[in-house]
């Protein structure tokens, strides 16, 4: 290892420690690491710009704009109230319906965005039912991480994997959605069993839900129509983007631009709702991991792993799945996946093995692993923070008790799926 490699690795590890320790904001930590690499001239400005994956950034920004506009129409509130009424106000049914609804929304929207859309409605419904909202919220947060695993745009690790490995939207659906559906159904039903004693309410309280008017949630019918047309075109575009020869970011940003043009909503009001810290976090991380790749640290690590697994696909796949899951339960999965992507590419180049199944192992491990602990996924942290402000404390232990076994179950199901259908 030469001096440049040692310094690059040291900056990477120091950044990782700062992110994990949460002593400073994760975006500031990543920016600090990237700036150090630029200031000490390990990489040039031009290199740093080249390392940024604009597909990932474009999909994130585009989808955030689209969701921010759709949110104004009241569509998500309408859907939640409608679902609660279709469940006849019965919490035992609502918990399942909301879990599935969260997972479906999360497959097309960012997990944090989905959970932020679901929490307010869930709190109001729990208030009306006079029950503790935590069972619903726990199911929703786990479902958002599960649902996000199914598609290219559902979770940032998938956006990164899709972009860097050249895997399309349809490939993700075909390869991951069957196992995700099985995991989702198992999780939701087991969670209902766990919380069944907390979900009993009097009949008159169920009637309170039936009195809710879902139509009053819709604020702007014209904007809703426009938004639904654009959303349908965007989803169609995602399904066909490989066929049409467009990057997924082109689809998301085109949809966002058209919606901005026809919605008449103030641009400032929309842009302010974009999660800029997340966007800058990605940009800085791409710079750091790109540097590791450029100076040859990633290929060294790939050589070590290939030497250990002897190029055995099954062993490599299972190690990636389980290691990603356990590490993602305790670490931020975004920097982990950002590091793993060039590593897997390097392993493929060295051993000549078919690395496609390894991408599915990485995606399943990194996305589902987030359910293991309170700090495993951004959606968990955001949910717990908001719930605490609303007077419902979910401790690390509370989350671990439910989340970790459910995460292990999902990884066991994924293992069976990968062994049977992919890793051979």
């Amino acid at each position: 290892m030469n001096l440049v490699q040692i310094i690059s690795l040291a900056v990477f590890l120091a950044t990782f420690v700062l992110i994990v320790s949460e002593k400073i904001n994760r975006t500031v930590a990543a920016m600090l690491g990237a700036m150090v690499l630029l200031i000490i001239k390990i990489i040039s400005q031009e290199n740093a710009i080249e390392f940024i994956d604009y597909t990932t950034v474009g999909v994130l920004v585009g989808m955030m704009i689209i969701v921010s506009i759709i949110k104004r129409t009241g569509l998500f509130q309408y859907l939640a109230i409608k679902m609660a009424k279709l469940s006849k106000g019965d919490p035992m049914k609502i918990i399942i319906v909301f879990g599935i609804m969260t997972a479906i929304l999360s497959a097309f929207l960012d997990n944090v965005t989905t959970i932020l859309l679901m929490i307010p409605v869930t709190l109001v419904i729990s208030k009306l039912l006079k029950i503790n909202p935590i069972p619903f919220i726990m199911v929703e947060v786990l479902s958002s991480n599960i649902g996000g695993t199914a598609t290219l745009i559902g979770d940032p690790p998938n956006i990164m994997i899709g972009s860097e490995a050249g895997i399309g939207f349809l490939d993700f659906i075909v390869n991951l959605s069957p196992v995700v559906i099985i995991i989702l159904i198992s999780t939701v039903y087991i969670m209902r069993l766990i919380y069944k004693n907390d979900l009993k309410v009097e009949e008159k309280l169920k009637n309170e839900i039936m009195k809710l008017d879902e139509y009053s949630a819709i604020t702007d019918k014209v904007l809703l129509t426009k938004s639904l047309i654009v959303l349908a075109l965007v989803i169609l575009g995602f399904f066909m983007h490989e066929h049409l020869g467009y990057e997924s970011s082109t689809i998301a940003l085109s949809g966002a631009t058209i919606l901005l043009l026809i919605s008449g909503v103030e641009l400032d009001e929309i842009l302010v709702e974009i999660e800029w810290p997340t966007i800058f976090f990605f940009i800085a991380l791409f710079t750091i991991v790109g540097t590791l790749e450029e100076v040859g640290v990633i290929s060294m690590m790939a050589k070590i792993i290939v030497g250990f697994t002897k190029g055995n696909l099954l062993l490599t796949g299972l190690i990636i799945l389980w290691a990603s899951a356990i590490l993602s339960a305790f670490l931020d999965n975004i920097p982990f996946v950002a590091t793993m992507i060039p590593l897997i590419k390097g392993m493929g180049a060295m051993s000549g093995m078919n690395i496609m199944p390894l991408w599915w192992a990485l995606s399943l491990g990194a996305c589902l692993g987030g359910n293991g602990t309170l700090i495993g996924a951004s959606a968990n942290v955001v949910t717990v923070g908001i719930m605490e402000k609303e007077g419902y404390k979910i401790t690390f232990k509370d989350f671990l008790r439910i989340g970790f076994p459910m995460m292990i179950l999902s990884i066991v199901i994924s293992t069976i799926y990968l062994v049977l259908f992919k890793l051979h």
Partner: protein
Amino acid sequence: MKEINVRETMHEMMLKQMGGKVTCFLGKQCFVKFDVEGYEISYAYNINAKNKYFLQRVKPYPMIAGVFDDLKDVVNMIEIDLEQFKNVITSGKFEKFLELNKKILDTARNLEDLFFYYIVDEEMFEQMDNVIEDVRKRIKENVKEDRRVYFKKDPETL
């Protein structure tokens, strides 16, 4: 920001279910505080892109100062209000004025509670009206040009 958005959505949903039409502005809430001879004079107003600025005096007693189309008018209003308070404070009768004002505000609340919580006789309603009219008459009787001390702006209600 995330927590604010969640709370906004939650409250919006509850208010909509009550039949309200909810409009939320993106803006900033500002508080301004002055210290005049040991008395706190404070105001709250919002800044947004819709050219609607709601100004409210918070202390020494709350009062809606109005809705303005221009932020300059908000500053102007605060400037005048502050000058008038300075005049009253230096007059040496401020404590008495505060006491009287508090009584009037409390009376308004009492009246509201009376009408909201109890059945009120028509006769009682008449009596109240007479007393209040008497107080207003007494106030107006004191308005004489030679006793006026502030001229930058004319009184709005007298």
